[in-house]
């Protein structure tokens, strides 16, 4: 188990989830999100999917609270639940705090809505933590996506730490020269944001120019296709899971229509 806060990025490790084909995992993420929205009124189903996600995350060696942004996600889920509890007025009153009454329907809606939110995020985290971006791009290219579009995903991920560090440095430079982010007076606040964004944008344009030179200098886009040093294929388990995922779509639709 990793004890310190970890960034939301791919980590190379052995395990069942890591060994799956990226498309198997991606399709799984889509089917789960689809199911959570279509089977929206069954709390038990939400609890079951959420618990499954937590167990998979635990088996894979991650703790939700130790992933960057994990705590914010939990707080947001609680906020969604509170909103539902306070504003949904249908059903019977089960609890009352002064003028605030909690209805039974509000409680089930609160649990379902917050679990839906947190479960989708949890499975997305699982996908990001266990899927190598290059393998995902390769999988998309194998499915027919032009590699030039696929690589935009990788270059975007590559730029994230650079942008993050530049944001900090620009902010530091602005603050140490007396720049301020006090909300009032509002024109000064907007001015500070404009100054910051201008430097960020110019800096990013320069980064992109440098990247273009680097990529063009290595024949990127010269041919319609390219080879990949990495090779990925669907295992028997992948094929079985993908079959289940595809079959579950009509079942979910049938459930929705039947209810």
């Amino acid at each position, binding site marked *: 188990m990793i004890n310190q806060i970890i960034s939301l990025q791919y980590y190379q490790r052995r395990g069942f989830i890591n060994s799956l084909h990226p498309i198997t995992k991606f399709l799984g993420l889509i089917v789960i999100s689809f199911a959570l929205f279509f089977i929206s009124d069954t709390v038990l189903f939400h609890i079951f999917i959420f618990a499954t996600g937590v167990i998979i995350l635990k088996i894979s060696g991650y703790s939700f609270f130790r992933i960057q942004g994990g705590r914010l996600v939990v707080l947001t889920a609680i906020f969604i639940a509170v909103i539902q509890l306070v504003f949904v007025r249908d059903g019977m009153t089960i609890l009352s705090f002064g003028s605030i009454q909690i209805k039974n329907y509000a409680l089930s809606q609160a649990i379902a809505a917050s679990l839906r939110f947190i479960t989708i995020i949890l499975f997305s985290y699982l996908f990001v933590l266990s899927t190598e*971006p290059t393998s995902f791009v390769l999988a998309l290219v194998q499915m027919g996506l032009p590699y030039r579009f696929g690589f935009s995903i990788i270059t975007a991920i590559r730029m994230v730490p650079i942008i993050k560090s530049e944001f900090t*440095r620009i902010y530091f*430079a602005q603050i140490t020269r007396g720049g301020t982010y006090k909300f009032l007076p509002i024109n000064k606040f907007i001015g500070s944001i404009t*100054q910051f964004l201008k*430097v960020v944008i110019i800096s990013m344009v320069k980064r992109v120019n440098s990247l273009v030179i680097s990529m063009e200098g290595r*024949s990127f886009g*010269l041919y319609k296709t390219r*080879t990949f*040093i990495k090779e990925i294929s669907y295992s028997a388990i992948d094929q079985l899971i993908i079959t289940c995922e595809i079959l579950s779509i009509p079942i979910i639709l049938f459930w929705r229509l039947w209810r």
Partner: protein
Amino acid sequence: MIKVEDLCFKYQHENPLILDHLHLDVREGEWLVITGESGCGKSTLALGLAGFLMHTIPGEISGSITINENEILSDSSDDISEEVFLVQQNPETQFCTLTVKEELAFGLENRRFPPEEIEKSVSRALSALNAEDLIDKQINELSGGQQQKVAIATALALEPKILILDEPTSNLDPTATHTLFQTLSELRKQEKLTVIVIEHKPWIFKDLATRQVVMKNGRLFEEEQEKLISSSINNKKPSHIDKTSPVVELNNYRISFSKTQVLKINELKIFPGEIVSLMGSNGSGKTSLLLSLCGLIGFEAKVNQVFGKPITQKKDKFVLKNRGIVFQNPDHQLFCVSVVEEINFAPKNLYGKDLDHIYIGGLIEKFELGESLDSHPFQLSYGQKGRLNMASVLSFKPGLLLLDEIFIGQDLNHVLFLLETIGEYVKHESASAIIVNHSAWPVFNYASRMIFLDKQQVLIDCPVENACEELVRANKFEYLPVEY
């Protein structure tokens, strides 16, 4: 091997020719160093030799560039990329994948090499640089030196005949620089590689380069090495240091990130009038120290005082008025639409009043920031932007200057100018300065004290007169001035 004839280039929407009827001949296996003032066109020439001026950079071009008898200005840049490889100034920004192996394979994959051949080329390139251990590393885990190695390995995997490096040492500490040059020297002999290096510090190539040329106003001139390395600079160390009350006083000072200690200082005092040269390898904690003294990052300490007050992360006016920090990258520190406004930015924010226009005009002239007062800061050359950063910090007269590798992108004359300016400022304002630098020369001629950080702690803290002996004693030979 390379023949450039009557080459002219003008950037789109800019008037003067950046390359002005330029001629150059480079023989196979040569190690050519191109030096010259910042903004004189060196990087533009590098882009031209790598085939980018025709296709990627908008502008007007005339003349010819012939590489191995191919006129590249009429070819596509992809064809020339098989002959020439350009390593840009900051390798971190030119990596487009996430791991070292993928980065090295990238060009070969684009050229549709079969995976088995790519595997062989990647291994061969890394072993040529003794960097096989890096193959499975994530790009964002690499140090500055490792990044530069990977950038060169990326080139070697593609087997170019000409390797162009644009300021390869700007982000490297002397140890990494030394290793890089040894590697390049061996590769040149083994692989008959032609190496062209653009560099502001020609003296570091004293025994390696076969030829050096100087660029002035878009043209190249042959120049003797000795003339370039002239080091007859008088000592201008601070003469009066007031040791009664320290500006900075630290005791049992620790800086940590994510529970990892990045710097530990048992005791440190810096006095008014002192100019400290802060040295150390990449990642030794130099920048962290400067940031923490401004209260920009957290720390733990028994005693921590700057100007007699504890350092806090609260951004109060006292802290901001007394500490002037200049960061490495000038582009990150320009917030206004004109040079005048940029110089006025901090005084206006901190003291609520504009500086006198005559005073600003004087600064613009002194720092050679262009002819027009209304020039946009981003229209200036890299070196000018760096000097503008310096002017905009000196304009509000802080008592403690914290300068983080401000000499990157400055030619020797401007490095000397900045050092002179810092010396004068410290003397007249009774201020102190901490200068983070990798190159002992010429900073040692102006500093009063050297602090060397190693393995996240202070290894040497001595008067600059003893710095060379102490560096020898600590086996840090790469950090010694060339003439030592």
